[in-house]
């Protein structure tokens, strides 16, 4: 699976051109363009309602854009080509696990859906990696939130995707789970996986990434390499954007 990507000629891996998503009057994305090369890690910051989740949903083929194009792993995202879906893994705040099944059964089910071979071994290794092997036969319902999140990470990268989308992955994690996630992200980054993550956590987001974007009202207000970015200055800019947004919301309610 991994080998097939090294021969992937498409460069850049993620290519977004003038992406818009609107329905009637609702504008979630208002013309976003950017490129991401193989192995790059982009952190997208932005206030709630900036359209970050919509961006990820479009890039992972869940939603159709209104106009503009996006190519992921060389495939047009619109319509969600099955081969493209094979290349991506998504981690979001919903865990996407069946509470009544055991971790092993969960991983085997999702593995079957990807058409993976030697599933049992694969699932066991994945469980070892996130430290859940001893509890592989207990129903997921009995797990703590942190354990569920760890399992959710194992599920998302079970098919070894070359591209990862993370939508606010640190929200609601305990320290252990967030460390497991960080470790995993660093490993994946070193293994040259392309990563796009949306987050609120400025220090954590800046620490790991190569590129930084600030998304406000459906647009990238800022898109730079992480080198040379002053953390405090960026934080200030980010909080300004959030405050402006809240200010605008205030008008609506009054």
């Amino acid at each position, binding site marked *: 699976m991994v080998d097939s990507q090294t021969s992937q000629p498409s460069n850049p891996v993620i290519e977004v051109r003038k992406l818009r998503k609107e329905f009637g009057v609702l504008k979630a994305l208002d013309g976003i363009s950017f490129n991401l090369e193989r192995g790059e890690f982009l952190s997208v910051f932005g206030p709630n309602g900036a359209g970050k989740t919509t961006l990820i949903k479009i890039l*992972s083929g869940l939603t159709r854009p209104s106009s503009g194009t996006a190519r992921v792993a060389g495939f047009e995202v619109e319509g969600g080509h099955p081969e493209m879906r*094979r290349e991506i893994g998504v981690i979001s705040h919903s865990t*996407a696990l069946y509470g009544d099944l055991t971790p092993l059964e969960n991983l085997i089910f999702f593995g*079957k859906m*990807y058409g993976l071979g030697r599933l049992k071994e694969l699932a066991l290794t994945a469980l070892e990696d996130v430290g859940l092997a001893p509890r592989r036969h207990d129903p997921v319902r009995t797990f703590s939130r942190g354990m569920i999140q760890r399992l959710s990470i194992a599920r998302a990268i079970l098919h070894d995707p070359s591209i990862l989308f993370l939508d606010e992955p640190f929200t609601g994690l305990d320290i252990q789970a967030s460390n497991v996630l960080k470790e995993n992200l660093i490993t994946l980054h070193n293994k040259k996986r392309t990563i796009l993550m949306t987050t609120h956590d400025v220090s954590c987001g800046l620490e790991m990434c190569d590129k930084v974007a600030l998304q406000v009202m459906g647009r990238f207000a800022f898109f730079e390499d992480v080198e040379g970015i002053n953390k405090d200055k960026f934080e200030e800019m980010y909080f300004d954007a959030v405050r402006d947004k809240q200010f605008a919301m205030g008008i609506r309610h009054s």
Partner: protein
Amino acid sequence: MNLFISQVSAIVWKDFTIEFKTRELFSAMFIFALLVILIFIFSVNLSVVEASEVGPGILWVAFLFSGTIGLNRSFALEKENGCLMALMLMPADRTAIYFGKLISNFVFLTIMELFILPLFMIFFNIDLLEHLFPLLIVIFLGTLGFCALGTLLSSLASNLKTREIMLPILLYPLLVPIVIAVVRMTGQVLAGEPLSEMMNWIGLTASFDIIYIGVSIMTIDHILEE
């Protein structure tokens, strides 16, 4: 194509594994169907009304009501932890998800119906064994139609705030042709008429099944989209 079949069977396997562990759905459906039959028995006077006249209607009302419980549960399970979104991220056709859910809904409901039949036979004092084969065909056609449209609409209703209320409101009026057809056919079958006497009803039910499986294949893409 092989992947498609293994994906469909993975979904069915998953639904069955969950059901074997919890046994929530089957017991709920079975007891509910039994209750519906009992309530109807109390509401009609069986010493005045002929059991074979009201029996088929009561039987199918029980099937449809408890089937609705199954449908509601079926997609609620997928929505619970955002599993449906994960399914949609898989390299699977949307129709694989539809067929997986359709088959597990259909099998659950059919098994439940097979458990209800002997009780129905005892309560109404109707001999089903004589006409078992044509009866099973009628049950197959009716249950398939119910599940074909029901799976489509429950995938739709699962995204609404009021899904438990909206599913029957959307589903029942559309099911009228099936309900009339299966109740009529069951009555005729129990009266000893051969299936060849009711080809118009069989044709109607079969067209219903085919039309709604076809429509579901064509529209499920638009429902399973964020």
